[in-house]
């Protein structure tokens, strides 16, 4: 591990930290503008001469476009143009690309059908765009859209995985027989089978991971303009990664020079993954802006968000766990069907494979693991990354299966986990599914959570609940996840088509202030505060003199954006390295100013000092000298104080922890209430405890949402039944308890800060804890399984199936 120069005495991690550096509970710098309504979002951007786009979308899940007559719409008031798939074809535009290829069994690559930005010939899900109307006002565009005459020849649709795989099912793409896009595997099948042959007990589970709709508070927006003088394109877009949007749209869809294309992602109101990928609308408005010579704006209506944002999860799995007579795990076998939707979205193939199966060891020593995954096309909107992306699916499957194994073998939920934990001295730990964990202490997070959750007092609380007619249950999840996406070389071997490094520029101003340019993007993650704390900690510059800039390809060098809890572990490390270059150069300048040898200069507390003397030059004076080089070693050193670092990590990071959920179920109605939720996480070094807690609170709330409330429903014809908040249940404040959160830290071994990541742990760790708690509550009624979302109806049915409430 590199010498961090940081205090690694984590015993004191929870102590109050004085100042604004690492570990301090600094209030978020960005909150003032957000809370006073001064945030500047893409929809706040209006360009002179701007026009408005409205998309005509398929109302059915599967149809051939027989006739498309736009003549009446073209003549309508205010209409400037109507564009359709025919125009897309005539202009020879490309389709939306996949960012990750999957190589299946026997070296059969994933089927990647074209994904045109306006449907050509066939529509494949409700909401698939057929045409765009561009008019002077949004109202005119929308009114004219009603005049477009579309004749669709409706065809039978497959709306879910099981229907898509049925014999003789209608095909989503002719090139994908049986609607299978890929059939992929990982792990040593023979070793797994041998271990199963010697098992004393095998626990089995069938698991559906419910489909979710992301519901970022800000809908997707795209505003594009084209400068007819210079030939420059600009796109303001709700994006988690503007450089990725630029690359994919320029190179694959519009075939325009990347250097002539500026993509700006201003303040973004939440993404949860859904704003990583390029969508049709962004390319359409950019293309149209150049075609028409006028800016074009599109803002999704909320119903469009429900219909067209990439959805999350949606797996059907069967898994078996082999145990020896003492309850040690011998082998795990998993077979998963993953819904891809109607097209393969940018990371649609990677999420259910590489972001999923390598997590199946969890926190346990299971020596043999084999997993196979089929990616399945259906006539639904594409499925892609959603907070956790693959890891919640793996965690849910594994932690439910471990819970079941404990119930079947008679071991306690705690004992079965303790017996199988990877021990703290076993790191680095190579799992049988590619991941190599660098650090962790699962007993520490477990025992801390047991105490915090007052598990000892549970039996009494359960008895009290019984007096009130309620069933009380306790559920565990000792999860692990992988983030810090990603070591590029590893990702490349696995099919990634892009690098996953991160970059930072540290620009020191002559007046001593600092501007940080980061390739990550904050859409709720608080980078303006956390990154400023890193600078304050390392350079001693006051927070009020630190600007963190992100989200604009014209201002930021390069960068891969924010997802996979990568910003601090990868982007923060780039920032540290750029600052270290600043300090190195600063030492040379200071040595000159103080007429000392460079080797005698140390940087401490915001000042360059000559060792062993009381001579010092503050950071600001060195910065000034760098830009006003009147007394400066110009023969050997360039003026200026600005440094760049690119960082590519050596490995993923592996946060983990223990979530304990306590529920009360009303057996008469099936209503579940989460009465206590404890989360003790190991997220590596904490920069700002308040922000970490906020991320855990939000993540756990999303996890409880998935477990109890949220479920996307398409009917058998592919109509979206949960297309509004009247039917799609988002978690609200009164659905969740006041959380009991804490950290037990081990440091990441391969980055300077020792950070692991916290953006997703809450959503990854929590769902199995909730469902295991419900199963526990109802176990004396004979209930062994409850499906997500555990709505009152689902819980009631589980009770009925087990013979009813007694």
């Amino acid at each position, binding site marked *: 591990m590199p010498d961090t120069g940081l205090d690694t005495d984590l015993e004191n991690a929870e102590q109050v930290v004085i100042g604004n550096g690492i570990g301090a509970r600094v209030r978020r710098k960005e909150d003032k503008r957000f809370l006073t309504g001064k945030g500047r979002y893409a929809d706040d951007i209006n360009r002179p001469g701007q026009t408005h786009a409205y998309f005509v979308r398929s109302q059915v899940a599967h149809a051939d476009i027989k006739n498309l007559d736009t003549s009446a719409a073209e003549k309508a008031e205010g209409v400037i143009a109507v564009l359709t798939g025919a125009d897309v074809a005539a202009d020879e535009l490309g389709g939306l690309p996949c960012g990750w290829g999957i190589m299946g069994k026997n070296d059969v690559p994933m089927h990647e059908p074209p994904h045109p930005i306006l449907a050509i010939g066939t529509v494949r899900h409700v909401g698939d765009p057929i045409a765009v109307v561009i008019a002077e006002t949004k109202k005119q565009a929308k009114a004219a859209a009603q005049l477009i005459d579309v004749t669709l020849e409706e065809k039978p649709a497959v709306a879910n995985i099981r229907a898509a795989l049925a014999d003789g099912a209608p095909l989503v793409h002719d090139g994908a027989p049986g609607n299978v896009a890929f059939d992929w595997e990982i792990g040593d099948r023979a070793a797994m089978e041998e271990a199963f042959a010697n098992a004393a007990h095998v626990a089995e589970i069938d698991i559906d991971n419910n489909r979710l709709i992301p519901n970022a508070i800000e809908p997707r927006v795209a505003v594009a303009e084209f400068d007819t003088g210079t030939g420059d394109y600009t796109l303001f877009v709700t994006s988690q990664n503007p450089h990725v949007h630029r690359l994919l749209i320029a190179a694959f869809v519009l075939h325009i020079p990347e250097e002539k294309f500026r993509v700006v992602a201003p303040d973004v109101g939440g993404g949860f993954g859904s704003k990583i990928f390029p969508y049709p609308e962004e390319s359409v408005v950019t293309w149209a802006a150049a075609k028409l010579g006028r800016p074009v704006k599109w803002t999704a209506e909320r119903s469009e968000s429900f219909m067209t944002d990439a959805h999350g999860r949606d797996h059907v799995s069967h898994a078996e766990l082999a145990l020896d007579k003492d309850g040690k795990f011998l082998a795990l076998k998993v077979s998963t069907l993953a819904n891809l939707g109607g097209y393969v979205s940018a990371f649609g193939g990677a999420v259910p494979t590489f972001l999923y199966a390598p997590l199946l060891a969890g926190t346990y020593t299971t020596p043999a693991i084999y997993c196979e995954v089929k990616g399945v096309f259906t006539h639904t909107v594409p499925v892609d990354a959603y907070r956790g992306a693959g890891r919640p699916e793996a965690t849910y499957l594994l932690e439910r299966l471990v819970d079941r194994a404990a119930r079947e073998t008679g071991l306690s939920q705690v004992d079965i986990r303790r017996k199988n934990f990877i021990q703290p001295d076993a790191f680095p730990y190579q799992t049988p599914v590619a991941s190599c964990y660098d650090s962790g202490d699962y007993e520490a997070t477990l025992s801390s959570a047991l105490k915090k959750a007052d598990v000892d007092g549970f039996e009494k609380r359960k008895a009290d609940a019984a007096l009130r007619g309620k069933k009380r249950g306790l559920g565990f999840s000792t999860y692990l996840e992988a983030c810090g996406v990603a070591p590029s070389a590893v990702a490349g071997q696995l099919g990634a088509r892009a690098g996953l490094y991160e970059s930072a520029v540290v620009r020191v101003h002559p007046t001593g202030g600092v501007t940080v340019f980061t390739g990550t993007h904050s859409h709720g993650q608080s980078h303006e505060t956390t990154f400023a704390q890193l600078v304050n900690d390392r350079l001693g510059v006051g927070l009020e003199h630190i600007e963190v800039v992100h989200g604009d390809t014209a201002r930021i060098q390069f960068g891969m954006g924010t997802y996979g809890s990568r910003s601090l572990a990868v982007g923060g490390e780039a920032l540290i390295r750029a600052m270290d270059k600043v300090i190195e150069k600063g030492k040379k300048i200071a040595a000159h100013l103080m007429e000392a040898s460079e080797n005698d200069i140390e940087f401490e507390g915001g000042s360059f000092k000559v060792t062993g003397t009381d001579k010092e030059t503050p950071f600001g004076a060195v910065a000034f000298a760098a830009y006003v080089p009147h007394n400066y070693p110009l023969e050997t050193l360039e003026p200026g104080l600005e440094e760049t670092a690119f960082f590519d990590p050596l490995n993923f990071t592996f946060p983990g922890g223990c979530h304990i959920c306590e529920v009360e179920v009303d057996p*008469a*109605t099936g209503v579940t209430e989460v009465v206590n939720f404890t989360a003790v996480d190991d997220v590596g070094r904490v920069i700002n405890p308040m922000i970490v807690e906020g991320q855990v609170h939000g993540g756990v709330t999303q996890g409880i949402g998935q477990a109890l*409330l949220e479920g996307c*429903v398409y009917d058998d014809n592919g109509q979206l*039944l949960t297309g509004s908040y009247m039917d799609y249940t988002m978690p609200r404040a009164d659905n969740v308890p006041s959380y009991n959160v804490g950290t037990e830290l081990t440091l990441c071994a391969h980055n300077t800060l020792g950070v692991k990541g916290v953006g997703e742990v809450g959503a990854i760790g929590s769902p199995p804890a909730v469902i295991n708690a419900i199963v526990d509550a109802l176990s004396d009624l004979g209930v062994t399984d409850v499906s997500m979302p555990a709505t*009152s*109806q689902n819980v009631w049915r589980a009770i009925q199936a087990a013979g009813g409430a007694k």
Partner: protein
Amino acid sequence: MSFAYHKAASVNDAASQAGGDAALLAGGMTLLPAIKLGLSDPRRLVDLADLGELRGITRDGDTLTIGSMTRHADVAASAEVQGAIPALAKLAGGIGDAQVRHRGTIGGSIANNDPAADYPAACLGLGATIVTTSREIAADDFFTGLFETALEEGEIITSVRFPVPEKAAYEKFVQPASRFALVGVFAAQGPAGTRVAVTGAGLSGVYRASDMEAALESDFSADAIDGITVPEDNMAADIHAAADYRAHLVKVIAGRAIAAAAG
């Protein structure tokens, strides 16, 4: 979506403008979203907002009268209502969220007769009288089907008269997403007899559970309905609750409402 807007100066003015292609605008909590979504396309809006005479709560002996433009929040907070029919105050306080309760009105709710709305259960459960610009209509005759009422074109609800009951309680089981009633039961005993009104569940909207009422006549207790089976065939069904689950809930929630009313 374009309409003329008229702010009524008096009830007579409103009545003369109402009907035809005009829609009455009360709190707008139902009407405005319907217009925005293109589900309703009136040419004229007649706004009742200024009609103070339609707003207010008065008690006269055993009758509580609530003006049609009285907001849910005002009913919930009213000492008069809390004293006379606490169950009604609780019902109003459980409608939607704070914004909705500060805009939505009792008249609008009843006129709209959403099959999952709360007030229709109170009207039916208490045997209320709906007073309009042209007549008085017994609640039993008012709610005629899904989003259907006995109101004639241009007829305006001016107030609702509730007989003060001896016992009453409203129990609401929410649909988790919309938080309208998946099943809501208003149980009461008083001058209008023994009544159990069910909202949210019925295939044709709010209804009286006459078999439960009969059982409660002699013994107003949750146990009295033990032997009753709620038939599935006139239950609504959707992704939140199939007919069998709704039927089950009607009985459970009715039991709780009766127990609460019995005290």
